[in-house]
């Protein structure tokens, strides 16, 4: 069975600071990994995805994530956050064997303070 854990329910950072949102996954084979973002009063939107190859993937709005097979992790990072980055971030996983089904973590609510 596969699962995704986001250990931090809430994260608060100051504008301009760097950011890391943590994601750990559990899956015996190679996963496909995603980060989605949910801005207030909007639907979830894809931020970035990882299938294979370079473990560091770039996404929209200068976000990037690093896949680590040894740590079973896919942490999201940004060098300098803006107040508009305040949102809920979800890590998700799917597999080759059942690629129609996405398993989501519980989400991390990011608040960027001025």
């Amino acid at each position, binding site marked *: 069975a596969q699962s995704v854990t986001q250990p931090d329910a809430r994260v608060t950072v100051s504008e301009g600071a760097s950011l890391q949102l943590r994601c750990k996954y559990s899956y015996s084979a190679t996963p496909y990994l995603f980060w989605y973002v949910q801005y207030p*009063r*909007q*639907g*979830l939107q894809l931020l970035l*995805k990882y299938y294979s190859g370079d473990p560091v993937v770039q996404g929209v709005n200068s976000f990037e994530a690093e896949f680590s097979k040894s740590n079973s992790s896919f942490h999201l990072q940004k060098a300098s956050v803006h107040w508009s980055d305040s949102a809920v971030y*979800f890590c998700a996983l799917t597999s080759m064997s059942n690629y129609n089904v996405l398993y989501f973590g*519980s*989400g991390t609510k990011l608040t960027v303070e001025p």
Partner: protein
Amino acid sequence: GGIITQTPKFLIGQEGQKLTLKCQQNFNHDTMYWYRQDSGKGLRLIYYSITENDLQKGDLSEGYDASREKKSSFSLTVTSAQKNEMAVFLCASSSTNERLFFGHGTKLSVL
């Protein structure tokens, strides 16, 4: 671009009531999904459908029915609303597993 429209935006029901949520997409996507979003629990899959008239159960299908009579629409029925239940139901669609497009959600409250 396309859009996913969920109706209604807000749904208030009574305990034991059967409630239906609707979802329309104009992306011409094959696969559609219903997820339930509870605070602190993330999104959990209720049902999905890979084509018209197909239904696949997710981890949370008990207590729900779904219907995909047309490629563009996917409805979800809460068969018997539970008292004090409160959740947001999200509809999504995709053409491949690469990217899901989500609606804005239907917020359910049961009195």
